[in-house]
């Protein structure tokens, strides 16, 4: 009898579920294969703050807006369209707001936050609600910093919001190193990814070239002619003023033109001169465990590591013209990647490992193309009647920095891989060799 009672509702439930299932299965599915080109619409309520923190709140808000704009993924809902309050409530208070007011204005997300300034410390809290999904909590964080860090806080906030929507943190709070002659000699400069906060990293009145970030973002390796007027590698650590000469164990074994740190930061892929030919080596930072990877009578340059550190892409003219090749990190299994075009150089391996960006010469100027590491897909990225050169990937693999002469002088630009929107970052002097730094801690 008990079994019969228990079995009856189970049977009914099974029948109900099967009925629902069959009704859905009987109908044809609707295929949605083309997303819209719209950006996420986000409503930004102004940070709640004490009167003393109003200036800080305004600066963070401004930086947040700039960071979201830089991502290219968001469109801000104008405050004039708000049906709800412009000012954010305190986050400690109960939600008690009407979600429909935000969905009715077409908003996908709502940002609320508050700023407090105590002594010399700024504290910020924010949360983002997923309006399209019933104002569900999407992301929320707290930041603490000094009054000088307000801009960084806003950008870090923007990057967190990008990450909440896409699964990949944004890159507004990252840096780009590059070479510029704006001070009269070719020096290394560093700027924020949106072109702001420019500062000089070197000031030695010599020739400095090929900056490369350490994987932790705490140091830059670069080539300089400041030592005996010959090219050598130097390491500039963040917070120190005097860079150190590295690879000392390789002293007297020919000049070193370029060095690129591997993803672990312990090994460096080097371009060294051997009998007048540029060859690729690997070595530790002090120059020990040096290993020659290329051995031929041609020029081998421009090494770039795969994100797992197991392979190296490089340029060689062993077949008569410069082409991009890939090999294992021990120099074995060399394979040519590019076959289109007679002059392909400057490879840069994306952090997600999917693409190698490179420059190809077309009608005496350079375009940027992408090839996958297996050489199966080869697609154009930036084509312009003026030269676009020296690509460098952002850590999210969604943007690239490059040098271009499209406005006459050489300047640093960034491009989004998705929207292909190009932004100019520098406006003074000749600016080349951009290298996008990793995520900051």
């Amino acid at each position: 009898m008990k079994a019969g009672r228990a079995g009856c509702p189970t049977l009914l439930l099974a029948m109900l579920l099967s009925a629902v299932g069959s009704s859905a299965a009987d109908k044809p599915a609707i295929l949605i294969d083309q997303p819209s080109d719209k950006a996420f619409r986000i409503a930004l309520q102004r940070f709640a703050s004490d009167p003393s923190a109003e200036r800080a709140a305004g600066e963070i808000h401004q930086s947040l807006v700039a960071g979201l704009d830089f991502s290219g993924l968001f469109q801000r809902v104008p405050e004039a369209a708000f049906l709800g309050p412009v000012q954010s409530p305190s986050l400690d208070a109960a939600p008690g707001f009407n979600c429909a007011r935000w969905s009715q204005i077409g908003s996908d997300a709502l940002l609320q936050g508050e700023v407090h300034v105590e002594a010399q410390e700024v504290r910020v809290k924010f949360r983002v609600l997923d309006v399209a999904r019933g104002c569900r909590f999407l992301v929320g964080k707290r930041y603490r910093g000094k009054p000088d860090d307000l801009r960084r806080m806003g950008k870090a906030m923007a990057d967190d919001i990008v990450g909440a929507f896409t699964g990949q943190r944004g890159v507004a709070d990252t840096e780009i190193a590059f070479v510029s002659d704006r001070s009269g000699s070719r020096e290394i400069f560093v700027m924020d990814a949106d072109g702001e906060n420019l500062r000089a990293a070197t000031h030695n009145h010599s020739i400095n070239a090929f900056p490369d970030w350490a994987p932790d973002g705490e140091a830059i390796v670069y080539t300089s002619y400041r030592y005996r007027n010959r090219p050598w590698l130097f390491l500039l650590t963040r917070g120190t003023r005097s860079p150190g000469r590295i690879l000392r164990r390789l002293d007297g074994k020919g000049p070193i033109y370029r060095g690129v740190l591997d993803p672990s930061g312990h090994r460096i892929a080097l371009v060294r001169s051997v009998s007048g030919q540029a060859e690729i080596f690997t070595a530790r930072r002090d120059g020990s465990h040096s290993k020659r990877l290329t051995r031929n009578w041609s020029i081998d340059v421009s090494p770039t590591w795969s994100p797992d550190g197991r392979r190296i892409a490089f340029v060689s003219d062993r077949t008569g013209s410069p082409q991009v090749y890939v090999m294992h990190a021990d120099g074995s299994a060399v394979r040519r990647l590019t076959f289109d075009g007679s002059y392909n150089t400057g490879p840069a391996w994306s952090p997600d490992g999917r693409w190698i960006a490179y420059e190809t010469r077309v009608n005496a100027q350079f375009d940027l193309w992408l090839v996958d590491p297996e050489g199966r897909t080869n697609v154009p990225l930036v084509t312009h009647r003026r030269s676009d050169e020296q690509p460098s990937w952002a850590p999210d693999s969604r943007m690239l920095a490059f040098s271009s002469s499209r406005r006459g002088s050489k300047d640093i630009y960034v491009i989004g891989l998705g929207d292909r929107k190009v932004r100019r970052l520098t406006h003074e002097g000749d600016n080349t060799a951009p290298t996008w730094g990793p995520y900051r801690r």
Partner: protein
Amino acid sequence: MQSYLASVEQDRRRQFRRILALSALAHGLLVLFYAVGPRPHRQLLLPAVVQVDLVAAPATRAHRRPVTPKPVRVKPVPPKPKPALPKPVPPKPKPALVKPAKVVLPEKPTAVPKATAKPAPEPAHAADESESYEEMLAKLRKEEGEPAHEAAPNAEAKTSAAPAGIPTPIPAQTRVWMARAKMYVTRAWILQPGFRTLPLEAEVQVRLGPSGKVLGIEVTRGSGNPWFDESVERAIRKASPLPAPPEADVWTFVFRPGDLL
């Protein structure tokens, strides 16, 4: 005198014999020339054969057309093929074929030796199949008592779970609604560009009210990427209310971005 006359007579006979021999030689050469000499008309025949097929071409141009390699490119059907030949033989034109009037190729298109070497062309076979399929479908419809359905099921029908490989015909009203619902959801679907090039696909079942209001969403087959699945759910919710469906029930949506970089 007699000797003079005799010598003249001898000269005449000699001359006659010489002329006779020359004449015979010339005739012999002429016969030989016709028998084994070059025959431009033999090659001219091939374009003429082709011209039979080219209805629009004026007949007189066929004879004036110069001998060029062009006819070889046109894949001419060899004239007078021998059906008994087991293998396709390169066309061996015979003197009899010199007369274009005798070439009546269009009458026997199936006697082409190449046809024996290759299987029958696919389109004809496919046409037969489709014909029989249409007939079968018509019979089924007749049995079901359905009116004749002229339009073929649209692309979405391929994704439906129709049993036994026979797509269920979609009523016109449903098809129109599906197109409108697709438009609503497409407009509401925001996907970050990086995901458009990845092989992501998600299937959701959406319970719709009679007015098209979304009453419930269930991701029945996730993409493995939570942010992609969230974007899908967001799109459905933002698209609500959809156009009033033909049936207030559970409907399946498949999200599959088709972009390549």
